[in-house]
C-alpha cells in the first residue's frame, strides 16, 4: 500500500470511530462501508460475542491498520478499497426461486455436465425444495450420528456460544492475528465459518462437508474455519464444491486453521470454483486465503486442492511440523484460463525430528493466464533427519499463458534431506494428434491428457469429489489449446 493510501486508511479508521462512536444502531442489518473499531464492536455485539473475542478482534484490527497489503505475489490486479467494503450484513437467505427454469441456463448446462443431480442443483441455486427431500433432514440425522461419537461440527458462531473453551484455546493458535495482512483483516471482521472437533481416538466415519452444516446462511466473504483433531483421531474434511459459485462479494479472505494433536490425522480437501470473471477477467472473485495446520508428535496433515476458479488466487496451505515424526502433505492442481491469475503453493516448516513432507503441485495455464507455484521448505536446526520431496510441474496449454515456479529452500540442519523436481511442458500437439488418429475427439483428448497429468493429485481426493473434479478440469479448459 502506498504511503498516501495508508494514511488515508489510518485517517478513515480514526475518524470513523468517532463518526459512528459506539452507538451504532444494533438493530440495523447492514453496517456502513468502512472498517473501524466501532464496526468491529458492532459485529461482535451483533453476534453476542464474549468479551475475550471482541478483544481478540480489536487486537487484530490494530495489527491490520499497521500492515501493508503484500506486493510480492506474481499478481497484477486492482487493489480493493478496504474502506468501501461493508463488513457486516445480517445473514439473509438468497432469493428463493420457484423452479430450476429460473436459473441462468449457462450455469445449468455446466452443472448438468458435472453430473450434479437435480436435487443438488436446486439446493445450490436456492430453489425451494420439497420438504422431505430437503437436505436439512439429511443433515439432522447426520448430526445425530456425529453427536453419538462426541464429534462437534457446527458453525463458528455456534461454537463460540456452545464450546467457548475449545474455540478460545485454539482460535488464532496456528494463524496468529498478526500473521499477515489478510489474516489480520479476517480476524477482525469474520462473520462466520465452520468449527470441527474430533475427540481422542475417534475416527470420523464420514467425510465432513460444509454441505451438511445446517445453518448454511451464507458464510460470507471472511470465512473462518477451525478443525481440531484430538489425540489419535482422524477426520477427512471437504470444502467447496465443483458447481460454479457466483458471489456478489469480490474480495474473499478466509482463514483455515488445523490442529492435529499427537497421532491425529487431518485430511483437508478443497475444490475451489469461484467465479473467475469473464474472458477479459472482469468481475471475478479475489481469493486471498490463509490456510495452515500444525502437527504434533506423529500427527499428519494432508492438504489436497483443486483450484479452477477466481480471478486472482493467493493461497498457500501450509504445515508446521512441530512434533517429532510428523508428516505434512500438499497435493495441488491449479488451473488458470483466460485472464485468471494464481499464486499458490505451500510452506512446510520442519521443527520436529524425523519429520517428512511431500509436495506435488501441478499447474495448468491456458488462455492469457498466469500460474505461479510459490513454496517454502524450511528445515529448522531442531529438525534432525527431516525429509522433503517436492515435485512442481507446469503444463502450458497456449503460448500466451505463463507458468512460474518460485521454490524457496531453507535448510539449517545438516542431516536434513530436500529433493526438488520441476518440469514445464507445453501440451504436445503430438499427443493430441495421436488421440485424434485413434478416433478420440479433441475435447476428450484434452480431457484425457490433462487428467492424466493431474492424476497423482486427483487420486488423493475422496472418490465422489474426484469424479466431479475430473469433469471440472475438462470443462475449465474447453477449447483452450492454441
Amino acid at each position, binding site marked *: 500500500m502506498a504511503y498516501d493510501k495508508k494514511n488515508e486508511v489510518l485517517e478513515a479508521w480514526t475518524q470513523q470511530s468517532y463518526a459512528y462512536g459506539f452507538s451504532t444502531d444494533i438493530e440495523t442489518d447492514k453496517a456502513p462501508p468502512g472498517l473501524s473499531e466501532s464496526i468491529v464492536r458492532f459485529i461482535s455485539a451483533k453476534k453476542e460475542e464474549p468479551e475475550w473475542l471482541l478483544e481478540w478482534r480489536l487486537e487484530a484490527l490494530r495489527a491490520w491498520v499497521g500492515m501493508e497489503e503484500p506486493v510480492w505475489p506474481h499478481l497484477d490486479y486492482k487493489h480493493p478499497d478496504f474502506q468501501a467494503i461493508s463488513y457486516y450484513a445480517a445473514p439473509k437467505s438468497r432469493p428463493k426461486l420457484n423452479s430450476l427454469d429460473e436459473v441462468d441456463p449457462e450455469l445449468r448446462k455446466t452443472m448438468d455436465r458435472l453430473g450434479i443431480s437435480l436435487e443438488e442443483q436446486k439446493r445450490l441455486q436456492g430453489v425451494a425444495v420439497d420438504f422431505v427431500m430437503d437436505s436439512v433432514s439429511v443433515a439432522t440425522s447426520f448430526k445425530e450420528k456425529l453427536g453419538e461419537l462426541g464429534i462437534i461440527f457446527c458453525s463458528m458462531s455456534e461454537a463460540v456460544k456452545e464450546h467457548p473453551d475449545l474455540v478460545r484455546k485454539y482460535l488464532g493458535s496456528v494463524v496468529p492475528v498478526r500473521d499477515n495482512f489478510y489474516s489480520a483483516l479476517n480476524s477482525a471482521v469474520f462473520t462466520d465459518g465452520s468449527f470441527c472437533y474430533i475427540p481422542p481416538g475417534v475416527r470420523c466415519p464420514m467425510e465432513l462437508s460444509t454441505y451438511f452444516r445446517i445453518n448454511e446462511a451464507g458464510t460470507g466473504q471472511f470465512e473462518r474455519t477451525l478443525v481440531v483433531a484430538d489425540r489419535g483421531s482422524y477426520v477427512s474434511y471437504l470444502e467447496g464444491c465443483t458447481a460454479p459459485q457466483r458471489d456478489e462479494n469480490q474480495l474473499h479472505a478466509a482463514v483455515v486453521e488445523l490442529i492435529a494433536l499427537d497421532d491425529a490425522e487431518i485430511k483437508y480437501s478443497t475444490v475451489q470454483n469461484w467465479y473467475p470473471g469473464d474472458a477479459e477477467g472482469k468481475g471475478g472473485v479475489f481469493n486471498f486465503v490463509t490456510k495452515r495446520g500444525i502437527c504434533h508428535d506423529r500427527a499428519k496433515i494432508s492438504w489436497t486442492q483443486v483450484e479452477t476458479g477466481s480471478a486472482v488466487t493467493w493461497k498457500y496451505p501450509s504445515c508446521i511440523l512441530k512434533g517429532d515424526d510428523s508428516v505434512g502433505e500438499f497435493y495441488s492442481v491449479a488451473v488458470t484460463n483466460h485472464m485468471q491469475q494464481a499464486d499458490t503453493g505451500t510452506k512446510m516448516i520442519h521443527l520436529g525430528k524425523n519429520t517428512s513432507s511431500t509436495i506435488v503441485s501441478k499447474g495448468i495455464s491456458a488462455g492469457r493466464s498466469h500460474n505461479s507455484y510459490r513454496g517454502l521448505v524450511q528445515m529448522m536446526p531442531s529438525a534432525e533427519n527431516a525429509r522433503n520431496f517436492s515435485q512442481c510441474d507446469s503444463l502450458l496449454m497456449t503460448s500466451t499463458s505463463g507458468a512460474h515456479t518460485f521454490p524457496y529452500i531453507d535448510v539449517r540442519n545438516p542431516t536434513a534431506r530436500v529433493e526438488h523436481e520441476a518440469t514445464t511442458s507445453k501440451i*504436445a500437439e503430438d*499427443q493430441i494428434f495421436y488421440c*485424434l488418429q485413434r478416433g478420440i475427439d479433441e475435447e476428450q483428448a484434452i480431457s484425457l491428457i490433462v487428467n492424466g497429468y493431474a492424476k497423482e493429485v486427483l487420486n488423493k481426493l475422496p472418490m465422489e469429489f474426484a469424479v466431479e473434479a475430473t469433469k471440472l478440469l475438462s470443462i475449465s479448459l474447453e477449447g483452450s489449446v492454441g
Partner: protein
Amino acid sequence: MLNITNLHARIGEHEILKGLNLHIPPGEVHAIMGPNGSGKSTLASVLAGREDYEVTAGAVDFDGVDLLELEVTDRARAGLFLAFQYPVEIPGVSNMNFLRAALNGKREYQGLEPIGGRAFLELVQERSAWVQLDGRLKNRSVNEGFSGGEKKRNEIFQMAMLEPKLAILDETDSGLDIDALRIVSEGVNRMRSADRSFLVITHYQRLLDYIVPDRVHVLFDGVIVESGPKELALELEEKGYDWIKERVQ
C-alpha cells in the same frame, strides 16, 4: 479401398508429394519403399490428416468417401488406422481408458452403443495375446516407459482392437529386433482379410519376408516411379535405389 489421384502436398513452402497416384483394392497389402526424404512418412501423415501438411491438389477416395474432406477423428472412425513410427507417450492415461475411448468413439460414429465392460475386457484379452502384450503393459499409461519393441507391439494391439479398413504401418519395423519383428508381423498377418487393406511403409525388405505384400511401389521425390510384384523388394535390396534414381533423372 484407397484410391489416390495426382496428390500434391507441401509443408510450408516445400512441396513433398508431387502428383502421387496409388490404388489399393480391398484385401491387398501394398508396400511402399524408397530412399530417405522421398515422401513416405509425408504420405502417411497426409492420409491421417496431420495439420502441418497442406494438400494443394489431387483427390483421395477412401471406400467411397472423400478422405480429404474428413477431420482427423472422423478419418479414424471411418476406419483409417496409422501405426506410428514413433508412438507417443501420454503420462497418467491408462492404456485401457485410452483404448476404450477410442473404441467407443468409433462405435458412436457407427451408431452403436458404447461397448460393455465385460465385452471390452474379453476383446482385450483376445487381441493382446495376438502380439504377446502382457497384462502389466496393458494397465500402464499409454506407451509410458515402454521399450521401442513394446511400443510397436502396442500399436498393433490397438489396430487389432479397432479393426480398421485400412491400416498404414509407418516404418513399424524400425528399431525392432528379430523376435519383436516376428511377433508384430504375426499380429498383422492375423488381421489380413478380404475387406481390410494395408499400406506398409518400410526401408527394408526384411519386414516383407514376414508380411508378404501383393504389390511393391517405389516412391522417389514425391511420386511413385516403379511398381511391381513382391520380387521388386528383393531387387531393391540387392541393387539399392541408385538405378531407379538414374532412370528417373
